[in-house]
């Protein structure tokens, strides 16, 4: 019980502090670092209560895709450089210490989670949540996702469809005057379609169609 409480409070403390840091840090790149730290702490919390599947999905989707994408966008936009000009320093090496701190904390969290793996059954049984230990996480999600929650699952698909249609509507521009390739027409062109031999009279010239 005590070990459980210690784990819980450690991870939650880190999660809350890093969430606060996301909003208060003046450098956008640092904010994204803290965002990653926040996601990792939350996924550690999930793993700790026995929901490994959710924890891993959290890592893959949020840390692996969203946050890294965020980081790329922020770096591409060059917001941090602008910010740095407004505030104190001008070097981009300012990211290194914060990045180091964040990665050390992440390392520490991973050690705690992996080190505590052996004691996981004890931790889980110490909680007030009760669930079946025989079925794995992924199984139990699969059991309800396509039965009781099928309508929500399908509707999420519709939401993604709307997102796609919306993105196309807002960005797609039909440009005029573009020379497109039509392979079939180009290959099946014959000589008589494109070349015409005319007898040109003197001082008259040829009248072209276009």
């Amino acid at each position: 019980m005590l070990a459980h409480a210690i784990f819980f409070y450690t991870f939650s403390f880190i999660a809350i502090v890093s969430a606060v840091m996301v909003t208060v840090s003046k450098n956008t790149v640092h904010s994204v670092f803290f965002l990653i730290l926040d996601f990792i702490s939350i996924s550690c919390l999930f793993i700790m209560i026995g929901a490994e599947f959710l924890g891993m999905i959290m890592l893959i989707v949020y840390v692996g895709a969203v946050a890294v994408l965020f980081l790329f966008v922020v770096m591409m936009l060059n917001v941090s450089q602008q910010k740095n000009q407004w505030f104190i320093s001008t070097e981009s090496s300012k990211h290194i210490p914060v990045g180091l701190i964040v990665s050390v904390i992440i390392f520490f969290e991973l050690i705690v989670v992996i080190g505590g793996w052996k004691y996981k059954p004890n931790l889980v049984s110490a909680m007030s949540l009760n669930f079946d230990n025989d079925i794995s996480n992924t199984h139990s999600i699969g059991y309800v996702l396509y039965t009781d929650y099928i309508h929500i699952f399908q509707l999420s698909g519709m939401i993604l469809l709307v997102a796609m249609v919306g993105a196309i509507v807002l960005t797609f521009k039909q440009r005029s005057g573009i020379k497109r390739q039509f392979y079939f027409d180009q290959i099946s062109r014959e000589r008589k379609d494109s070349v015409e031999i005319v007898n040109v009279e003197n001082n008259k010239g040829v009248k072209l169609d276009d």
Partner: protein
Amino acid sequence: MNNLNYILPEIFISLSIMFLLILGVFKKKSSNLVHYFSIGFLLITGILIFNNSLDLNITLFRGSYIIDSLSSYMKILTILGGAIVLSISRKYLKLFKIFLIEYPILILCSILGMMVMISSNDLIVFYVGLELQSLALYVLASFNRDQLKSSESGLKYFVLSALSSGLLLYGCSLIYGFSGSTNFNLISQSINSDNHFLTFGIVFILVGLAFKISAVPFHMWAPDVYEGSPTSVTLFFAIVPKVAALTIFIRFLYVPFINVIDQWQTIIVFLSIASMIFGAVAAIGQKNLKRLIAYSSIGHIGYSLAGLAPGTNDGIQSSIVYISIYIVMNFGLFSCLLMMKRNDKYFETIDDLSGLSKHHPVLSLSMLIILFSLAGIPPLAGFFAKFYIFKSVIEESMYFLAIVGLLSTVIAAFYYLKIIKVIYFDEEKEKYDTDHSLWLKISLTSSTLLILLYFIFPSKLVEIVSRINII
């Protein structure tokens, strides 16, 4: 399999969305076809809902989806609203060169979201429906992306709405944490008014919902979004999402939280009073008609929320009648707005209306009737709508709410009368075009006639609505 019959309308509309997308992509220049098809599909969906019989009361998917008289009635209102919006906005869209296949498809998507919202009996289903609806609305708001104002309104709506969704979700998670379930019926069994943290959850959810319905003090987005979006989209915004949001308001307050009515009653009274007063006062200084309509819709939402405050079936029914009549009045007003066109340019300020009566006597007369009705002058439909609300409020002896409502009606009458004065007594301007589409004329005439002749059969609508019993 039997259960699928009950959600046939939803399945049909989602399949038709996919069919129209494929049709639009593979057939060149198919905007016209897709437009007609989507109106037809909407009407078929309406018939399917009607076919399900209005007196059902069943829950599906382990109680997370409910089909009852409230959901059927509101769904039919939503679908009719969507179909009329599509049919009267064709000319406007063509003129602004935004007559694309995506427009009707997005409207269908948001209507699907609203239908899910209306039928939801579970926090997750409700949120998914809400998100589907608003995602389509964000895109619609910035549909005319060549115009700066349209893109601005879309962005504003997106940012603020995402924030309110966050608050709503936080409220949902609090409710889930304290009651242990996301199902509305199970929540109502397991909560009691001793738990003060629960009130936080209710407040957060109400904030999110009040934002979606644009009740004061969460109304800031409405005037900008209404002004910036294309008029046909503003028409959609002003009418259809309000129906869905009002339904979910009713469901939230009267299914899971009915036992803790003393917790939320003051909040609803405050929202209602603030919206009524603000909607009346802030509209006075407006020059742009679309902004004015935004403020007036805030005021009207205040009245329909007032019907939810007493906590009785009569109150709910009066508020449903109010929103039904509000829809008819707004269709008339927007039809007038879509008729103010000269040399392929639309006008939308009050000054452009000056002396309208000289050249367009019929248009001005119907506008006069609609504006009088919006102001609540007897014997027009708007008067009856307000009458039912005040009756149900006074029956529960909430006199303060009724008095504030009456006073704000008087203030609101000022700006409606000001427009009428501009139409009838100011100096005339150039003539507007008269080559309006048939649908626009039908919409204006029928809404004017409905408003004008409502007093002959006032009991018909009330009879239909009285079948809706929530408590």
